């Protein structure tokens, strides 16, 4: 696939219908979903653009974090009093009601932090699909990144331009994050 070049087709934000249409056309022209990537300034659901559903592990990472938080809380509220039992008032060493507070807080802490870590990890982990960016995206443009073999380039461009797209050739991968 060394010959494949990444292109970016930019649509104005009002031309969402055209963008959706363009994706359909690209698929017809033999560019697989795998080689298409949509970038946009606001979220569009996959249904709108007719794209396959993306998949994320954030929920699972969050859940795992919650479990870790829960276990830490169990240790802190039931384990530490056993290490060095210190009596306060007439309370038991491991009272359940007060432990619930600790367990709740630490479970939530685990959930929330690991959710964020999930976002972070997924962001920095390598993604497949075409890379490239254009500052117009953050001005509301919808960009369709695709890589196609050079031989079909012409026809694709023509099709897309007919739909009102602005084509950027040969998008270079830009290092957006250290």
């Amino acid at each position, binding site marked *: 696939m060394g010959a494949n070049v990444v292109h970016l087709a930019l649509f104005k934000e009002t031309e969402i219908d055209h963008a959706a249409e363009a994706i359909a056309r690209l698929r017809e022209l033999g560019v697989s979903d795998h080689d298409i990537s949509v970038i946009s300034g606001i979220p569009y659901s996959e249904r709108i653009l007719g794209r396959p559903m993306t998949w994320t592990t954030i929920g699972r990472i969050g859940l795992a974090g919650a479990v870790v938080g829960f276990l830490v809380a169990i240790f802190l509220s039931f384990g530490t009093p056993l290490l*060095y*039992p*210190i009596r306060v008032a007439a309370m038991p060493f491991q009272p359940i009601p007060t432990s619930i507070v600790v367990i709740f807080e630490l479970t939530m802490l685990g959930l929330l932090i690991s959710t964020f870590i999930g976002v972070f990890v997924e962001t920095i982990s390598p993604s497949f699909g075409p890379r490239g960016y254009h500052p117009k995206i953050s001005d509301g443009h919808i960009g369709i990144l695709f890589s196609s073999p050079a031989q079909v380039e012409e026809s694709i461009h023509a099709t897309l331009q007919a739909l009102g797209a602005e084509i950027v050739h040969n998008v270079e991968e*830009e*290092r957006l994050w*250290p």
Partner: protein
Amino acid sequence: MRVKKSWWQSGGIRIAAAFVFLILFGGAASGIYLSQIPPEQPIAFPHKTHVALGAQCAYCHPAADWGPNAGLPSLSKCWGCHQQVQKKSPELEKLAGYVQRNEPIPWVPVAIQPDFVKFNHQPHVRAGIACETCHGPVSQMTVALPQPRQNMGWCLDCHQRMRPNDFVRLSDCATCHY
């Protein structure tokens, strides 16, 4: 587009950060070090020699058996032996000087606890704890050396190991702190 060097990569910032780190780390390290080296003593008393000659700890520190402080020998006790034996070494001349001036020897305490720790030798000696358990191999030292990590966990650990059935009493805060 040339990636500009980030601010945190600038030399000045890095040097400053290194400096702060060094100060903090160095301060902590020297603090720990200073509390672990033996302090300068007025007379380099050779424990080793005395123990080798068969002197018991309690001969010079008898109060460990009946009171909180082990006590230091009075000049007369030192002199009681040393006026008989030869006084060739410069350290013994120092001792003779103190005796002549009838001036107490300003020993610097080595095995000390903070003032909020009320340690009593007597119960420990009565329980048959050997002096070396806490004071280290004094029989191989000249001046007494501070023993590292004599902290609360160390006390508690020993209390728990030696007297598991009596740990409630021996882990009571009022045993040492009031």
